[in-house]
């Protein structure tokens, strides 16, 4: 029996962590993810979990403690946002290169400066090629579900990569919505016990981890990480299938909303997808064949699958919730268009930088995107700004 509740994204994430009952949680508070370790430390204090909670002095230490714990053979988790993630950046790379399946809740927030605590994806995008699996969540339900699936993916022996579950700061993390929770016993059965093949505290089989890796070796180890990322794609789908059997909720690499005959398509991630769906329903009632491709699995990037799904569109708009400072397009735009180029697909595709620093994303803004798509003539400058105040 599932449990009907109403929880914020942070509450849902902390609740999933409680149900998973990891061995170690090491975290440092930072808005808007603060509530996750806060709620979790309450569970620890109440004796509702067996977890060793490490109140570290910084995010760099949070990730370092997770690395130490995971290498020792424990299941370790953390949560952070924005500058916290930037502060742990060095250790984020170490975690993936040591092939430690740490799971992190990333509540997406703008990277300062100037100082801003609201949602955009600049934090996640700054670590997008760090060798972490990255799942994005439209709602509190998806943030919860992705968290329940996370360890099965990360700890799979063909994968062994850390994984972060992303959700939009405040919009998802602090908004209370209805949610369907899974019974704790069922979650624990689904997630299973962590049984690493090799770990430091295995006294009978002593090992060394993270050794010096010079010219003859590092290249090959990076190639192994590439292979693990490739394997992750199928594992993500397999775990989603099992999850569907348990809950009835279906997950894929991305969600297609009214895409069967869609001519004008928006590609986006996280909470904006909900707004886009509302707009699509209205446009469809007026005969516009609008569709949405919402990316769930951002790393590994399902480029081929996405390009194929977009191949029949007349025009595509990519929504990048990241400041674009390179003059060649946002990360999502670059990934989608390069996947299309590789497969010889030439669909007019434009890029919108939007929602920066928590700028409100309204339905009327999304409507202008679809009307732009229907009137695309000049493709000389595909880079646009949505919701920007301009003279």
């Amino acid at each position, binding site marked *: 029996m599932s449990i009907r509740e109403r929880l914020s994204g942070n509450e849902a994430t902390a609740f999933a962590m409680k149900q998973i009952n990891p061995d170690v949680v090491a975290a440092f508070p930072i808005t808007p993810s603060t509530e996750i370790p806060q709620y979790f430390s309450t569970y620890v204090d109440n004796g509702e979990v067996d977890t060793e909670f490490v109140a570290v002095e910084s995010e760099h230490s949070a990730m370092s403690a997770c690395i130490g714990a995971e290498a020792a053979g424990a299941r370790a988790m953390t949560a952070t946002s924005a500058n916290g993630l930037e502060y742990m950046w060095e250790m984020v790379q170490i975690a993936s*290169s*040591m*092939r430690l399946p740490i799971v992190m809740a990333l509540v997406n927030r703008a990277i300062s400066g100037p100082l801003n605590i609201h949602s955009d994806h600049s934090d996640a995008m700054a670590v997008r090629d760090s060798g972490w699996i990255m799942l994005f969540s439209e709602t509190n339900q998806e943030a919860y579900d992705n968290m329940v699936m996370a360890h099965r993916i990360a700890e799979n022996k063909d994968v062994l990569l850390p994984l972060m579950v992303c959700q939009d700061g405040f919009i998802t993390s602090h908004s209370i919505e209805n949610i369907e929770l899974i019974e704790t016993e069922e979650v624990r059965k689904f997630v299973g016990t962590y049984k690493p093949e090799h770990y430091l505290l295995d006294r009978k089989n002593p*090992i*060394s*981890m*993270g050794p010096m890796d010079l010219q003859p070796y590092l290249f*090959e180890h990076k*190639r192994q990480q590439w292979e693990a990322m490739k394997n992750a794609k199928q594992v993500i789908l397999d775990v989603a299938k099992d999850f569907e059997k348990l809950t009835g909720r279906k997950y894929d690499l991305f969600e297609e909303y009214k895409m069967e005959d869609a001519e004008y398509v928006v590609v986006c991630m996280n909470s904006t997808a909900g707004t886009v769906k509302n707009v699509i329903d209205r446009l469809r009632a007026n005969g516009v064949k609008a569709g949405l491709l919402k990316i769930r699995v951002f790393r590994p990037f399902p480029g081929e699958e996405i390009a194929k799904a977009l191949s029949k569109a007349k025009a595509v708009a990519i929504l990048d919730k990241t400041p674009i400072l390179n003059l060649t397009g946002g990360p999502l735009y670059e990934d989608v268009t390069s996947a299309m180029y590789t497969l010889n697909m030439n669909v007019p595709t434009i890029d919108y930088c939007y929602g920066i620093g928590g700028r409100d994303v309204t339905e009327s803004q999304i409507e202008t995107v679809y009307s732009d798509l229907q009137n695309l003539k000049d493709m000389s400058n595909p880079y646009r700004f949505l919701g920007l105040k301009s003279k």
Partner: protein
Amino acid sequence: MEINNNTPWQDMTEGGTIYDAGNSKTFKTGDWRSMKPVFHPDKCKQCGLCFPVCPENSIPVNKEQKREDFNYDFCKGCGVCSKVCPFGAITMEEEGK
């Protein structure tokens, strides 16, 4: 498990983890040396001052508690032993002379 300069990526261990303990013996670091300590047994009084200061444990001591010649597989030529020797039994020479 034998991993060397020619091992393909498919045969390497994940994250470079080393499953055989005590493997540092097989990684010889003596070739980093630019200065080399030379042992003169005729001047040595076996006072025992040199081997405890060696950071690389490269001065072997036998069962009779007597030091033997240097283990050049791991000696990096730091010269600390030469400094502590009161009898001039260890001199430093340029490597590859």
